[in-house]
């Protein structure tokens, strides 16, 4: 059981952001504790990705505040997020298609030689090591990632997020393109990271996976937070009901 008495690892308070007239995220508050997996669920277009992009620095929120370890932080760009040990696997994967796996893995944080030049050999060696753990069948180290399958690309994106000792991990549909075996490996990886005390926001449309992996789940609809529930207290159907009806279980349908 996750201990939720101390200070949360991250608190998103009253986050709002709109694009043009659309309120993509509307006064949403969620938090995350060390060693916790917090699921985010909701329809397509509910605002899940937009919410976590405020935390990862991809978007700048209109209102609201972010606290890391109880301290208010300014996250204006992805560099700020990385500086707070926040790593993200984006739904779009955010890979540079013309570069190979190792270059993508280390993009923005290249290993360098004592002379300050990029050390491609060292990066490839590290890449081989981590890919050996995540996707042992992966062989295409020399090819640009445009030559990889969807699942292989996803493995590269996952490798990038977990390589750099994140404290807070955001996973936006990390298994969408993976086969059953690889999906299971990611599930094992999530459990392993959780045991290390890392906090994880997990966006996933698969309610069963959320039930299996998460400690709590928040459901969003039309940019608003429907509610946050403890997973042990709910059933699959409760979660589905929240997603479809936009009501917390037990709440009377109006």
């Amino acid at each position, binding site marked *: 059981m996750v201990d939720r008495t101390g200070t949360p690892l991250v608190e998103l308070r009253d986050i709002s952001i709109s694009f043009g007239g659309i309120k993509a995220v509307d006064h949403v508050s969620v938090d995350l504790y060390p060693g916790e997996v917090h699921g985010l669920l909701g329809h397509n277009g509910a605002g899940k990705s937009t919410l976590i992009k405020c935390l*990862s620095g*991809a978007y700048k929120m209109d209102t609201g505040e972010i606290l890391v370890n109880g301290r208010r932080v300014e996250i204006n*760009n*992805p*560099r700020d997020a*990385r500086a707070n040990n926040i790593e*993200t696997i*984006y739904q*779009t*994967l*955010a*890979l*540079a*298609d*013309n*570069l190979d796996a190792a*270059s993508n893995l280390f*993009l*923005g*944080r*290249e290993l*360098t030689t004592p002379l*300050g*030049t*990029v050390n491609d*050999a*060292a990066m*490839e*060696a590290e890449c081989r*090591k981590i890919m*050996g*753990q995540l996707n*042992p069948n992966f062989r295409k180290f020399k090819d*640009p990632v445009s030559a990889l399958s969807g699942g292989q690309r996803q493995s590269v994106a996952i490798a990038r997020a977990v390589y750099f000792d994140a404290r807070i991990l955001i996973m936006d549909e990390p298994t969408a393109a993976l086969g059953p075996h690889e999906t299971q490996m990611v599930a094992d990886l999530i459990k392993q990271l959780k045991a290390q005390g890392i906090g994880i926001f997990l966006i996933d449309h698969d309610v069963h996976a959320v039930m299996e992996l998460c400690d709590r789940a928040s459901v969003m609809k039309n940019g608003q937070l429907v509610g946050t529930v403890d997973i042990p207290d709910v059933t699959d159907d409760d979660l589905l009901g929240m997603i479809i009806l936009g009501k917390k279980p037990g709440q009377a349908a109006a």
Partner: protein
Amino acid sequence: MTDQTTPVSTTIQPDPGDNAVKRFLKATEIDTRLLGMVGALLMIWIGFHLYGALVNGFGAFLTPRNLWNLSVQTASIGIMATGMVLVIVPRHIDLSVGSLLGLCAVVMGVVQTEVLPAVFGLGHPMIWVFAVISGLVVGTIVGAFQGALIAYGKIPAFIVTLGGLLVWRGVAYLVVRGETISPLDSTFSLLGGGPYGAVGAVGSWIVGVLGCVGVIFLLVNGRRQRRKFHFPLRPVWAETFLGILGCGIVIGAVLLVNSYPWPRGIVRQYAEANAIEVPESGLFISHGFAIPVLILLAVGIAMTFIMTRTRFGRYVFAIGGNPEAAELAGINTKRMTVKIFALMGFLCGLSAVVASARLNSATNALGTLDELFVIAAAVIGGTSLSGGIGTIYGAILGAFVMQSLQTGMVLIGFDAAIQQVVVGSVLVIAVYLDILYRRRQK
């Protein structure tokens, strides 16, 4: 880790089905695209030579004199083409390079003929240094300014530099009121080549030896790196072949430039000035590498280093592959854009040095239409306009292709109209062939 990792480096293994050529290419890891470009260039050279020999009775192309001149004429476009790769790879374009070259040239002209002589006195040995610096600074500032408009003003590079094409040409006119500045400082004009603006036989051999040492160092160091990380090695015979090939090209180039002697008039002048007795048979004084060619060489090496070995270069490619991903990976893409255009501007300044020094004059019209040749050189050299792909050596080879066509057609007496038709067609055909090649690679 799995226990399949090999503790020692293996040698690259050919597939059993490969024929001899494929095996050879795989073992040496020679880029077939590069091979194709070099082949095309050689075909152009031989073609012009044979045409001259058969139709005009004299093949003038493959002579030391012509190839030496070709190398000098390529320098200016070649220098800018390396920068254009840097601009096009992250999906930008720079149409202002020719005009910016003109502006830098007239600024340097005014600085070295009017401003500095008033300060230091005429013919002071430091004049050329400050003149060059002034041109590089102007180029860099203008480039950075354009880059800032693109990055922070979010105006497309096409528009900003199209405006720049007109603006900087106009400013160049205003600086000199349309007048030609000539002659330039005598030391400065050496940077454009010519008999005195070349490093001579001994100097060329020094360059050649350094080149060979460089080739061998790269091969040895590459092998050491691979061994350290247990990556497959090239077979020893392939390494040896590459070493011999590399050194052979370098030494061949030295022999070529050293076999082009100074013209008799210059020799006489030189002999008189230095009180040397000229024997009956004449004195053979080699040109050696021209200074602008060495500048191009240095720029090529430096830019290759930047593009392939530095973080900056890595980010340029990343932005070209996926600008959004680059931003999400924490790369400050706006600042990158400013730096990229500043570097392009710097290279325009350097190109202006070479171009104005070669003519020993500076006019506001210098570099007119260069933007087209520079972009064409980069694109012929395999830089993809959709971004993410490009090499420095490709752009330099592309510049050689463009200049070879120009020179060759002048030599065999094609008039300007036909030249335009040919150059334009070659550009389109070259890009089409490149597209076909890439499609087959996939």
